[in-house]
């Protein structure tokens, strides 16, 4: 074995102090295999060393939460299924930012593959995919390539595995020029008595490897995702994994078939850090030890070393602990689906991870230090006041009056952040499964729970410019908007997953963003009974590749999940009928700080973001859900980016009917982004309590902008950009 030099330690992304801990815990120098294993387990990506301390403060409990953070995905109770058995929704969101910037198609595709495995590992059939995407300026020379690659990659993987991609969000901002964000979310449904966990137990139980063979791809992906980009990010292309959605589809079916039996003790997918993290996590959760014979690992090419096998991030692989004697039955299922199946080791009681290769022990590490003694940092952070002084969001000040609100509306509807995303979502199979009731073009996406009257409502949300200007209010707003979008279709918001994308945590201002957003999210989750059940942290999202140390905007992407008891009562945003009255719930204060109007019309990102009154948010959400349940309203849409007129224009375009407004409008009322608000329509003569009547459905324009012009503005952005 080679001598471990300080250079080798540094190449593995370990600090001197961290290496000293390894020497102390082992009582000797590690060999290269052992060093590699420590390096990936202690990477930011796997150990959450900068974030763990703060994540512990998030609310994770509610009576309907079956399993919170710590497993592969979060699990919530969604009532009875068609056979009267209890059912659960299992979901998580995860980032694949760094690989997607380097190689957009495969980066995004394997992001989808990875999150799918996190969900079906737990026994759920995946029923919906969503994606939260952030790109740089559309006129950045690389951006067209990145957007087309990411969208094709998400479609290429999701379409093939047969899970509908039903929603998500896409934003553009120069802060992502050198570091795009690709966050993928999967939601699955399982029977509550068939949920699978990852703790390896039962000394002597066989450890089984299934799925694809192990190749040399993706070695050190987790370490890569834990450092910021240097100038030559293309050099890291070989660390990006290559996905095979066809194998994933077979793996889903084979795993679910085996899960219907009683053969599995524990199961875990091989995601970041591959065989290392799956085997270490399974053994340490079970308080057990593990012995693997590396000669048994199915390999794609000859001559692979244990080091390569342990660090490979080849896709579409799972690790299972089976009950003894079940191997032949399990093997028959995997062979039927033409997948590899190999018993590669067993559970032990040594508390050590022991790897053998060619009859020799090539690794012997106590599991305690690997998983539990991983470093944890309380990194320095700026105070709220110091952060404000650093971020300088400035004042909105006097804003010019608008000469023509309709012209402003047209400009907003054609802007990159508000333009129709049809170009994107038409590349995704959104309907496979035959249960898609609504895409997230309006508010939440809605997918029926197969064979029942229930449906899941899902939405991804975050407004990064708010988070930058005020991390605490921005964190609150991200949760509140998910709550609002689910309420707007008639769903009861139940729980959220998150994907916390931030820049370098070693900078105190970035830590201030992180802790501020988390504090806001925590308060909002508590106030709205909307706990966080799973999540992922992606740090070091900054890049020198585009010149300057450009950090991304703080982007804590939220994936909310809610439940409709009866999907036939689901609300949509489209205006239904001429003559219906238009009502505004939540009033207006005309908050223009950080509004899209200020940015798109006047080129300024200024002011404080709109504050979120959590009590009002909850009250208005409950009112709207009650109205939908009573079928008192004909259309519902929340007010978010772009304010009231954009909301009305979206409802008008969806229904093909205009709006005639009775209210006096000024810029602040038209485009202010005050929170906790909805527009609803109701048949004439129906009073909507605690709401303000603002107009009538009818005509073919909104605030002087014709529907035809609005549609052209809305649909031309992507067409002109991508096909022009």
């Amino acid at each position: 074995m080679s001598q471990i030099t300080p250079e080798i330690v540094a190449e593995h992304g370990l600090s001197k102090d961290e290496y000293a801990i390894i020497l102390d815990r082992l009582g000797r120098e590690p060999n290269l295999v052992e060093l590699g294993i420590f390096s990936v387990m202690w990477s930011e990506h796997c150990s959450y060393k900068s974030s763990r301390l703060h994540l512990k403060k998030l609310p994770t409990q509610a009576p309907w939460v079956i399993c919170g953070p710590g497993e592969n995905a979060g699990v919530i109770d969604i009532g009875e299924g068609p056979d009267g058995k209890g059912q659960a929704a299992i979901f998580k969101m995860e980032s694949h930012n760094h690989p997607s910037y380097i190689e957009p198609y495969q980066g995004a595709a394997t992001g989808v593959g990875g999150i799918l495995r996190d969900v079906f590992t737990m026994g759920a059939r995946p029923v919906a995919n969503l994606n939260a995407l952030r790109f740089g300026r559309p006129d950045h020379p690389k951006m067209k390539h990145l957007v087309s690659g990411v969208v094709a990659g998400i479609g290429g993987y999701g379409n093939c595995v047969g899970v509908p991609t039903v929603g998500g969000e896409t934003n553009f901002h120069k802060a992502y020029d050198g570091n795009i964000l690709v966050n993928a979310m999967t939601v699955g449904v399982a029977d509550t008595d068939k949920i699978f966990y990852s703790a390896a137990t039962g000394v002597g139980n066989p450890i089984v490897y299934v799925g694809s063979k192990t190749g040399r791809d993706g070695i050190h992906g987790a370490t890569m995702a834990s450092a910021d980009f240097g100038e030559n990010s293309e050099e890291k292309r070989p660390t990006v994994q290559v996905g095979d959605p066809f194998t994933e589809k077979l793996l889903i079916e084979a795993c679910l078939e085996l899960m219907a039996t009683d053969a599995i003790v524990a199961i875990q997918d091989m995601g970041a850090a591959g065989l290392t993290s799956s085997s270490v996590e399974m053994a340490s959760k079970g308080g057990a030890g593990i012995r693997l014979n590396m000669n048994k690992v199915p390999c794609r090419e000859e001559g692979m070393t244990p080091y390569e096998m342990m660090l490979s991030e080849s896709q579409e692989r799972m690790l299972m602990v089976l009950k003894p004697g079940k191997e032949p039955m399990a093997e028959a299922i995997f062979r039927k689906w033409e997948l590899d199946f190999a018993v590669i080791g067993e559970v032990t009681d040594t508390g050590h991870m022991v790897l053998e290769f060619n009859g020799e022990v090539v690794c012997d590490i106590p599991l305690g230090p690997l998983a539990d003694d991983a470093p944890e940092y309380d990194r320095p952070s700026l105070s709220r006041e110091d952060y404000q002084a650093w971020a300088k969001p400035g004042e909105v000040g006097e804003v010019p009056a608008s000469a023509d609100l309709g012209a402003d509306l047209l400009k907003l509807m054609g802007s990159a952040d508000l333009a129709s995303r049809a170009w994107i979502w038409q590349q995704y199979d959104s309907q496979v499964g035959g249960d898609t009731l609504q895409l997230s073009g309006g508010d939440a996406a809605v997918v029926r729970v197969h064979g029942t009257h229930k449906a899941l409502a899902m939405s991804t949300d975050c407004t990064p410019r708010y988070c930058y200007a005020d991390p605490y209010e921005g964190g609150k707003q991200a949760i509140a908007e998910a709550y609002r979008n689910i309420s707007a279709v008639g769903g009861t918001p139940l729980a959220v997953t998150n994907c916390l994308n931030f820049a370098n945590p070693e900078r105190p201002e970035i830590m201030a963003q992180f802790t501020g957003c988390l504090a806001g999210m925590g308060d909002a989750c508590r106030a709205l009974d909307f706990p966080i059940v799973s999540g992922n942290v992606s740090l070091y999202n900054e890049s020198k590749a585009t010149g300057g140390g450009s950090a991304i905007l703080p982007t804590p992407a939220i994936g909310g999940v809610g439940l409709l008891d009866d999907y036939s009562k689901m609300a949509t945003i489209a205006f239904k009928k001429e003559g219906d009255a238009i009502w505004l719930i939540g009033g207006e204060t005309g908050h223009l700080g950080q509004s899209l109007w200020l940015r798109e019309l006047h080129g300024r990102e200024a002011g404080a973001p709109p504050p979120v009154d959590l009590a009002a948010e909850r009250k208005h959400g409950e009112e709207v859900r009650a109205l939908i349940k009573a079928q008192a309203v004909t259309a519902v849409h929340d007010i978010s980016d772009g304010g009231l007129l954009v909301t009305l224009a979206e409802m008008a375009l969806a229904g093909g009917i205009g709006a005639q407004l009775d209210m006096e409008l000024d810029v602040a009322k038209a485009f202010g982004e005050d929170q906790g608000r909805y527009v609803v329509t109701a048949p004439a003569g129906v009073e909507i309590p605690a709401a303000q009547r603002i107009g009538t459905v009818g005509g073919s324009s909104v605030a002087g902008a014709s529907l035809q012009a609005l549609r052209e503005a809305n649909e031309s952005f992507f067409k002109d950009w991508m096909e022009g």
Partner: protein
Amino acid sequence: MSFRGAVVTFPGSNCDRDMAVALEAVSGVPAIRVWHGDAELPANLDFIALPGGFSYGDYLRSGAMAARSTVMQSVIEAARRGVPVLGVCNGFQVLTEAGLLPGALMRNASQHFICRNVKLKVENSQSLFTAGYSAGQILNIPVAHHDGNYFADDATLDRLEGEGRVAFRYAETVNGSARDIAGVLNEAGNVLGMMPHPERAIEEALGSSDGRALFESAIRSLVEA
């Protein structure tokens, strides 16, 4: 005698359950599920569906490997005996690769995957699959494919048109298909291949129920036969 409809599953099929749900919704009888590796089809089938998806990952060419799987020999024999065979999306690709239908399905002209509801015109309302529609009727049916650009040489296209074997045509620009052809019949009229998904349009909650009549007319023709 009750209806015996079968849905074939290839590795990578992903609309097999949806097809089985549609068949059961319309016929009232659960569909029989057939595995690609089965040497023989179940006896006395009234109807065979090849579903959408990505059989064998679309590797080589979409439908090419599935067309050579064990069960397809039996499907080809059944089709020659006159058993109705419906291939949707990847199933259509398999039927052309298996030689049961003429032509080929190339990459969409836009090069992109396309998923959306499209306007579909019924060209032939006399076949056992389309008797529930009237000629010229416009349907709202979803498409979801990357390789749906139908190609055949002019002589073949002329023959298909002349023999009334163009079942459906797109009534809008979709994927670059020759003469906007969306679905074709074999010479005997008992094999239909189409790119749009009628099984995704069987109830209004999903956005359209225009696909239902296709299954209804196929099943009715069998009951009346």
